[in-house]
């Protein structure tokens, strides 16, 4: 399998410098030294809690924000060095589906206009000429062609998310970044959308970078996973193996805190002490050490690097892995 997307040592530090401001400048490192690949036709999940940097990662790959360090290589081209016109052309090949189907569609534009617009901007196709293609894509996501003349408010959340997927598909991308794309949906609709996304993947051979906080969705939709904590990847590997035999203590805590709809597996949910530290003021050494049950002296002094383990495809960043 060839790699479609290669992310190397990606880092992003947000700085606030205000002209003539009395407040002190501050820096927040949202991403630190993140590297991974996405193969063609693969689904890579990114999981973590708030402040872990998963949304910043998505926006760096899409070039909505410029990374401070590192490279994003897409199909052999480094996106961070492209001129803006070339970037714009490249954007058609990477698309995004957002979390909130209520705010990701412009309420003032009809569905047809929303879906035809990318074709006009990138290929100069006029609305009337784009319509057959728009209807075709609507059909592909299970929406009636009559949706063309309607407006977002006439649809439910699940239907809107289908429309958002159709918008992402219309330029025939190779990679779709889904940022919590099913988190806002009811479970019965969530499964519909997940199955739709999987079917599209099988038909078109595209790849997903799938950001989620829900381990159930992760387990049932992704091939590989990156577990992130405070801007770093702490563990990565095939999703089933990683969740069954977590090696990083944070992965274990995350898994054990996720409630499962099964009374027989009821136990006191494993409690992770303490709170997620602020990314503006991260702990020294390993970012997880203040909450970690396995922490030793070295953990507060030196940050562990993400290193391969003897298990196939598994990497972990921990001084004392399980």
């Amino acid at each position: 399998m060839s790699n479609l997307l290669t992310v190397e040592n990606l880092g992003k530090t947000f700085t606030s410098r205000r002209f003539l401001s009395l407040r002190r400048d501050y820096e927040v490192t949202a991403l630190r030294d993140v590297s991974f690949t996405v193969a063609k036709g693969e689904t890579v999940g990114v999981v973590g809690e708030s402040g872990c940097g998963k949304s910043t990662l998505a926006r760096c790959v899409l070039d909505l924000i410029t990374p401070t360090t590192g490279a994003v290589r897409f199909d052999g081209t480094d996106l961070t060095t492209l001129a803006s016109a070339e970037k714009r052309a490249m954007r058609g090949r990477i698309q995004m589906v957002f979390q909130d189907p209520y705010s990701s569609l412009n309420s003032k534009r009809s569905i047809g206009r929303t879906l035809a617009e990318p074709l006009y901007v990138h290929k100069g196709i006029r609305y009337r000429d784009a319509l057959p293609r728009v209807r075709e894509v609507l059909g592909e996501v299970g929406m009636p062609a009559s949706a063309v003349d309607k407006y977002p408010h006439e649809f439910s959340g699940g239907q809107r998310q289908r429309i958002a997927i159709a918008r992402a598909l219309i330029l025939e991308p190779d990679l779709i970044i889904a940022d919590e794309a099913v988190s806002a949906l009811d479970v019965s609709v969530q499964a519909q959308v997940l199955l739709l996304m999987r079917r599209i993947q099988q038909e078109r051979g595209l790849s997903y970078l799938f950001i989620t906080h829900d381990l159930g969705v992760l387990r049932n939709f992704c091939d590989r996973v990156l577990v992130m904590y405070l801007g770093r990847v702490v563990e990565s590997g095939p999703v089933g193996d990683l969740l069954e035999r977590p090696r990083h203590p944070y992965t274990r805590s995350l898994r054990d805190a996720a409630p499962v709809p099964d009374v027989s597996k009821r136990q006191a949910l494993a409690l992770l002490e303490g709170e997620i530290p602020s990314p503006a003021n991260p702990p020294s050494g390993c970012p997880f050490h203040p909450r970690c049950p396995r922490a030793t002296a070295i953990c507060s002094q030196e940050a562990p690097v993400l290193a391969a383990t003897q298990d196939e495809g598994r990497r972990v960043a921990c001084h004392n892995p399980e």
Partner: protein
Amino acid sequence: MTATPLMTVEDLSISFRIEDRWCRAVNGVSFDIMPDETLCLVGESGCGKSITAMSLMRLLPGSARLGGRIGFDGKDILTMPEAELQTIRGRRIAMIFQEPMTSLNPVLTVGEQIAEPLVLHKGMGWAEAKREARHLLDLVRIPDADRRLRQYPYELSGGMRQRVMIAIGLACRPEILIADEPTTALDVTIQAQVLALLDEIRREQGLSIVLITHDLGVVANVADRVAVMYAGDLVETAPAGELFDKPSHPYTQALLRTVPRADAAFDLHPIEGQVPSIQSMPEGCRFAPRCGEAHAACSSPPNLSSGPHAVRCWARRDVA
């Protein structure tokens, strides 16, 4: 099972006027709240679980039309004079909400907000109320309570704010605590902490918790009894163990098959179609249009069967 219920909800219905028509958001729901238990109201958006919870304290806007009876301490909450309700709200029944940031007043300190109900409802002096507030922060396991009392909501994390909300809810030692999606806005590791805290407090204080949630995982972990709602109907109610082991209503069964689980990969079975709009509810059983087992009888509304495991379905007359 002879304990007397703390609260009895009988045939509760709630209607709203939308576009010059009365629409039934809650359709004849009945359940009991037993002493010292956690009852979960579970369902998807639009099922009416939140407004059912609000109606338990009659917190709905005046435009809502309520029917049925909510028996509490021998009286009916729905017909009680407003003055009498004031003696119940916050004192004997308390409520906490999903979004702890917007439910807290940003310009008052944590201490003032916890002390306020004590001063108002219990007639304590401010000094005494502050001492009690400190004790309540200990109760919800907030470390360094003295410092926290002087802080403002924005200085606290989401999990801490939800703990403060729980402390406010518990201030007057209520008999029933209604928690509307209290962990939905929190990260999973923090959610686990808050759920564990609620359970500990229930044990220590001997109160009943009505937990409203959409998350079946949460239900499986904390519920003693479960009531499943769909489109304004209570479709199934049972002790938690039985509901998950032997779900009976087609909707409950479908719901359990559609939830992705972290502990196993399996084929997802979506429920086809969508939740009906409140303005165009199907006649008869409201789940029938999406139900694989619907037949002719389903065009008229089924009744909830009796017994501890009750189902509202024509195809399931035999259980219970």
